[in-house]
């Protein structure tokens, strides 16, 4: 059971109208693995991540989470049909997601943001939700900001609160979409530190990032995407040291100047 990949993607196609953004991706993420996704802008990294928890519908192929089809179910004739909202929600609740622009709820305090998921989705008691919230905010170093509103926090603090909000659901995997790209350079470190400690604890993580240092040091494998395709998927030493594809080499040359 725990040998099966937590996420498995097969032949994934996604288009926005006529624009084909993902062109048949296949890969797996093992439990406890940290997968970094890098690639040029517009290559489909965010879209891929959003397909994993079905924030975007895909047109062909399969996404499986813990062996369950995400977003669709097979009807009698074997055809794929949109799954019920409830099933999709159940799967989403098992994946935490962290966004580039934080997306904290501005009308709620930091603690309320973190309690929201457990309270509303998992329907745990207020006590339990608050307990979880305090523990997590302690952990990301925001215990003194519990009563603050998101607008009163720095970008780095907001992103740490957003990570705590996602963790409060006690997810089996975390998806990060360029979590540090909107931050001032001096605030990047505090967020990466939290992510690094998560990885060290064995959290399964899929991280779209421009932080090559993070990809190199923390990731177990690095996926390089270009124009909707996977052009490289290997341990960081190989991707950064001896890339197979010339497109990877070209991309790395540009980002590592």
């Amino acid at each position, binding site marked *: 059971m725990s040998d099966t990949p937590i996420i498995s993607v097969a032949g994934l196609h996604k288009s926005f109208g006529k624009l084909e953004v993902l062109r048949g991706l296949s890969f797996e993420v093992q439990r406890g693995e940290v997968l970094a996704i890098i690639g040029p802008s517009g290559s489909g990294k965010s879209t891929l991540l*959003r397909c994993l*928890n079905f*924030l975007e519908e895909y047109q062909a192929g399969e996404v499986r989470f813990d062996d369950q089809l995400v977003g669709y179910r097979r009807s009698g004739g074997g055809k794929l049909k949109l799954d019920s*909202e*409830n099933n999709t*929600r*159940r799967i*989403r*609740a098992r*994946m*935490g*997601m962290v*966004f580039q*622009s934080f*997306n*904290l*709820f*501005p*009308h709620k305090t930091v603690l309320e943001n973190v309690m*929201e*998921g457990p309270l*509303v*989705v*998992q329907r745990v008691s207020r006590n339990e939700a608050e307990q979880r919230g305090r523990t997590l905010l302690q952990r990301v170093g925001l215990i003194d900001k519990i009563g603050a509103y998101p*607008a009163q926090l720095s970008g780095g603090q907001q992103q740490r609160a*957003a990570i705590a*909000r*996602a963790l409060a*659901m006690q997810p089996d995997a975390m*998806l990060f979409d360029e979590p540090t790209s909107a931050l001032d350079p001096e605030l990047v470190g505090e967020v990466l530190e939290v992510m690094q400690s998560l990885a060290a604890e064995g959290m399964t993580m899929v991280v779209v990032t421009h932080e090559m240092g993070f990809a190199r040091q923390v990731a177990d494998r690095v996926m390089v995407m270009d124009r909707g395709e996977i052009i490289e998927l290997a341990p960081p030493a190989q991707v950064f040291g001896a890339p197979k594809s010339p497109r990877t080499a070209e991309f790395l040359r540009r980002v590592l100047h």
Partner: protein
Amino acid sequence: MDYIWQWNQIWDYRQVFVRGMQVTLILTCWALLIGLVLGLALGLMRSSRLWLLRVPAAIYIDIFRATPILVQLVWIYYALPILSGVQMGNITSASVGIGLHAAAYIAEIFRAGIASIDRGQSDAAKSLGMGYGQAMRRIILPQAVRRMVPPFINEFATLMKLTTLGSVLAVNELLHEAENLINNTYRPLETYTVVAVLFGLMIYPFIWLSQRLEQRWKTRG
């Protein structure tokens, strides 16, 4: 330019103005109630993912925005009874007519308020596992309502002005009472001046409030 204003006669008839204002307020309240309830429903339908809800709401809104309210009012008063057999009194007709009209605009305020909330908010709510209704109720609407309040108060002021159209259905609202009064007193200048001032007094506070709120919420971000 040597017009001699005669206010004493107007003062003698002050009860007429009070009566007219009462009817104006009654019309406003009913129309507001209808406009609000229907407008909220239409606004939610218009924002729905299901075309079966979205399209009828869009058609309703477009029809009421693309035709003059005066035409809507006389249509409801004269044509609807013939088609439906439902005969409404003139106050009811005017309330319903203005309410149905306002609903189209309130629905748009509502839809625009929902649409103005960043998509990241519903993404975040969904990624936690919230359903559409939960995300709406707990995340989207509380933020949207704030942005809706100023335009909504504006719409309220507009609605109160529109009640003067009730006069074409012989509803004894303020303007119609004034017109009747002029037939007795032959003092149109004074009478219309009083009507204008009274409407101004009733409506201005709301316009002021709306501007204030808009200012305050803009600076707070």
